[in-house]
Each structure stands twice: as C-alpha cells, then as structure tokens.
C-alpha cells in the first residue's frame, strides 16, 4: 500500500528535529558516531515517513516493511526516528549507551522496539535482508526489505557475497542503500580502499542501480519508488551524502566519525540546527 509522501518542507523540518535529537543523545551519552548519524538522516527518515509501512504500537506487525541498519554505528539516527514515531517513549533517547538502556551503542533488536536485527559488526546486514526477503517471497507476502550500508562497509567481502545472492534469487523485494559519503575511519574511501566506480560494480552484479542526492527527500522518495517498481532484480541506491551534514564543523571531517560533541560544540551545533 503506497503512502502519501510528505511535502518536502515538512519532512525537511522533521529531519532538522532528528538532527537536534541526535546531537542531544550524543552529548548526553558522551560518546557515539556523530558524522554518519547526521549524514544518513534523510535516507532513513524518507523511508519511515514516505515509504515503509509499520505500526509503532505493534512493531512486529505482520504487514510491516523491514529496515536493516547494516552500518549499525549510526543507530542514533534510527533511534531518533523510532523515538519520534512513538516506538518507545521519546525520553528513552537520552539514555543512549548507558548501563541498562534499551538503546545500546550498536543496535540490539532484542532490546529496542522497532529494530529487526542486531548489527554493529559491519558487512552482515545485507545477508540478513536477503534472508528476510526470501522468507517473505516463500510466504507470498508483499512486504519489502530495506538495508542501509556504509560506503566503507562495501570493503567487506560478505557484502558482495550477499550481492550475488540477491541477484541470483531475483530478490526484487530487497532495496539496498549505500550512504556514499566518501569517508571511513582511516580517511577518504578512495585512499583507504578504492571503491569507484561503485555503481558499475553493483551493475556488474546484476542489480538495478539508482544514484541520487542522499539529502534530497524528494529524490530519495523517487528512488525508493523506482526500487519498488523494479521487478526481477534487487535495487541498490547509491545516495550521495555529506558525512556530518547539517553541522558545519562536523561536515566532511573524518575525525568526527566516532565522536560526540562536548557541551560547547553541542550548543554551537544546536544553534546551527535551530528552526
């Protein structure tokens, strides 16, 4: 069942709120991954607000679509989405990474309502997505499976094993997204372990490949809808993004991969993210 997409201005406003929540979560936690979380906000928010079916009151609803966060370290972005949608009381967000929290430093689906798998060891999510997609197909169900990966994460061999599996079994209910921010921990992806041209690689693996601006919610909505309309092969969306998007001093800074803001940086960030 197709959803009516939100007007761009409205979803952009939600994304700003999500970014503020991410910064608040991280400053309270004192650790966490600022860059990738801020950078993947539109990718995740567009899915939840414009594309996927789900029921926050019943996270295991049989007709839901699935989202697997393969690059688990950016879970603050997904937690912020789930908290704002009411999967759990929003105040839980401020317990991120603390002892006993439902919000672990990396996603643990047995603790957090709305998660579908436990991730954090990179490279494993697309295989999980494929398995869910196979089960859905066997049961003749129309539910869809989305899986967000990092570009650095594409270094993992398992990603390409899963890439072959999805194409071989024509899992057209799978849609992968690569957050193409050109950064991993050790530096620029092309210096650490060259990936380009990434689109050609996926095309050669028999995937339908779409490239788009990963911060443009309308472009993302179109891309997701194209993926849904594509039959006979899985789709990968190469979403061009800026790591740390929205906070000037975090944008494109490799050192902000796995860092949380201090109080002063937090206040500066919140000023930049004000409505």
């Amino acid at each position, binding site marked *: 069942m197709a959803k009516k997409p939100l007007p761009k201005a409205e979803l952009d406003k939600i994304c700003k709120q999500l970014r503020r929540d991410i910064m608040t979560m991280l400053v309270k*936690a*004192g*650790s*966490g991954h600022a860059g990738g979380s801020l950078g993947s906000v539109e990718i995740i928010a567009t899915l939840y607000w414009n594309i996927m079916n789900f029921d926050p009151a019943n996270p295991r609803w049989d007709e839901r679509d699935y989202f697997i966060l393969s690059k*688990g370290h950016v879970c603050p972005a997904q937690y912020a989405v789930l908290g704002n949608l009411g999967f759990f009381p929003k105040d839980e967000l401020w317990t991120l*990474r*603390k*002892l*006993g*929290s439902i*919000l*672990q*430093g*990396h996603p*643990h689906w047995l603790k957090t309502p709305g998660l579908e798998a*436990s*991730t*954090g*060891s*990179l*490279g494993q999510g697309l295989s999980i997505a494929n398995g869910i997609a196979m089960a859905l197909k066997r049961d003749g169900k129309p539910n869809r499976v989305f899986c967000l990966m990092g570009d*650095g*994460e594409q*270094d*993992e*061999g398992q990603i390409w094993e899963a890439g072959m599996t999805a194409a071989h079994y024509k899992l057209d209910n799978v849609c992968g997204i690569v957050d193409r921010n050109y950064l*991993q*921990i*050790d530096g620029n992806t092309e210096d*650490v*372990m060259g990936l380009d041209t990434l689109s050609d690689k996926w095309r050669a693996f028999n995937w339908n490949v779409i490239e788009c601006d990963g911060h443009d919610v309308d472009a993302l909505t179109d891309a997701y809808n194209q993926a849904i309309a594509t039959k006979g092969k899985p789709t990968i969306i190469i979403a061009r993004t800026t790591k740390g998007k929205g906070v000037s001093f975090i944008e494109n800074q490799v050192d902000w991969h796995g860092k949380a803001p201090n109080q002063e940086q937090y206040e500066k960030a919140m000023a930049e993210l004000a409505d």
Partner: protein
Amino acid sequence: MKVEKEMHLVEDLHQPQEKPTRDGYGDGLLFLCETNPNVVVLDADLAKSTRTVWVRDKYPERFIDMGISEQDMLGTAGGLSLGGKIPFVSTYGVFVAGRAWDQIRTTVCYGGLNVKIGGAHGGISVGPDGATHQSLEEIPLMRVLPGMTVIAPTDCHETKKATLWAAEYTGPVYLRFGREAVPIITTEKTPFTVGKAETYRQGDDCAIVACGTLVWLALLASDELEKEGIQCRVINNHTIKPIDKKTLAKAARECGCMVTAEEHSIFGGLGGAVAEVICQEHPVPLRIIGIEDRFGESGEPWELMEEFGMSKDNIKKKVKEVLKMKKK
C-alpha cells in the same frame, strides 16, 4: 603492599598511573619498524583505535591499509609472511578472532605461517560501544588452534615486551589488549618471558592466577585479605598458550586451592586453560572469575567492570569460597 622485590613492580600499587595496553602495542610496533626491516603493519580501518596510526604517520612505507576487510587482511598477511615479511595485523578482537577465524585456522595456523595478530578491544571495559565490540571470546578461539601462541598482557609495558617478542619468534601469535586506560603495574625491569607465569606475591593459602587488568585487582584483593589473615599467592599468567604447567602445578600443590581471574568469558579462557592443567597435574578446588554466560552491554568501563564481577571484592569473595572447599 607486599610483593616480590625481584619482580620490580611499581612502587605505589594503590595509586598507579594509567595507560591503555594498546599504547604498548603501538610503541612496540614503532620500535620494530625502526629496528626490523621485515616488519609490516596491516590495519582494517581502525588505525587510530589500534594505534597502528603511529606507524602510518611515521613509517608510511611499512603500513598497509586493508579497508574494512578482516578476512582478506589475514590471508594477505599469510601471503606477506610467505614472501619473507613479518606482518602484524590489527583490528578489534571480535573482528579478527571471530570474523577471520577460518583464515587464521587454515591459512595461518595449519600453514604454520609467521603472522602476528594484534587483537584490540578485548574485554568488557570497551564500554559504551556495547556487546558487538566487547570481545569476550578470543582466548578459546585462538588457543584451540595448534601452533598458536596466545598472550594477554597486564599493562602497556608488558604489551610492548610481548609485541617485541612476537617479531623475534617464528610462528603465529595472538596478542590481546584493551581500550581503556588501565593501571601500569610493571616496569621495564619486571621479568617477562613468554610461556612463564610470574609470581608477583607469595602466599600459601590460596593462589590467584590472573591475566590483564585482573592481575592488579588480584594484588589489591590479596592486600586486603592479608589483613584478615589470608595469604594469597598472585600469579601473572600472561601467556595463556603455551601455558606454564610447572608454576601452576606448584601453586596448586603448595596452596591447595586456586582462583582464576580474567576479563573474558568464563568458558575456555584463562580459567579453562588453568583448569585443564591442574585437573590433570594436581587437582585442587578452583573458582573461575570471568564474564558469566551473557553478552556485554553498553555502559561506562569501570561501571561495567563492577557489574560483570571484575572487581577486587568479587575476587575476595571467590577466594573465601574456595578456601571453604579446601578445608572440607
């Protein structure tokens, strides 16, 4: 504090300085790059965390970034060793001992290749990253492999010594070290021989055999137990394989009971290795302190250490338990 003089431990064991053990690995690698032309350092997109970034910055020609591909890194290291190099590969323990286990088993160990593995982020004290990054399982995974040497140093000095030793020795080696700053208890002069457990404190009531930071906690526990009239022997068992049977059997014979302590799962780790020795050489009552049968969690490092039983009070409690068994 009462400790053996010839062990040359730091003066103030109650308020020691702190440094992460991974710094000892980085220091060791820098020294090796300067002194051994065959050493090369491989990393899987965690150069800052594993301290291999120090090599990247100072000796870029010795550094090979493999991206986030641990299995490929182990195989490549195997090939480099076949080509006469001495490769040190580094990433978090979970991603190497776990992710690349089969490559370590068949390419490296079955092939008897000269590959050195720096397993970072061992233990619960990794902290807020949570279970996915807290490696609690490397010791059995590695020590089950024929030909593998497994070392879990107690502090940064010992980690450096182990790193230097690994380059001299021919064969696969796994070094386990941690993320958090932990007490520095040894000095340059403290004896360190791979395969030899060192007795840091003498005592005949109960032997505490520990590795990693738990050696320090065992010393603190023993100091307090002494005030209650209990004399503990404290053994730093840094080399888990090959294990020092002689020192362990002697401790079992002379103390009559034993407690092991490690920042690792209770299954198959230091405790398991010690149990294998004493059950066969000189059975005595034994208690194993480690992470019980559960995954880690997010939290602050020392808060998690307490929560998961990595504390001097838990060591005292277990010593008393095992003493009761001994008296029966």
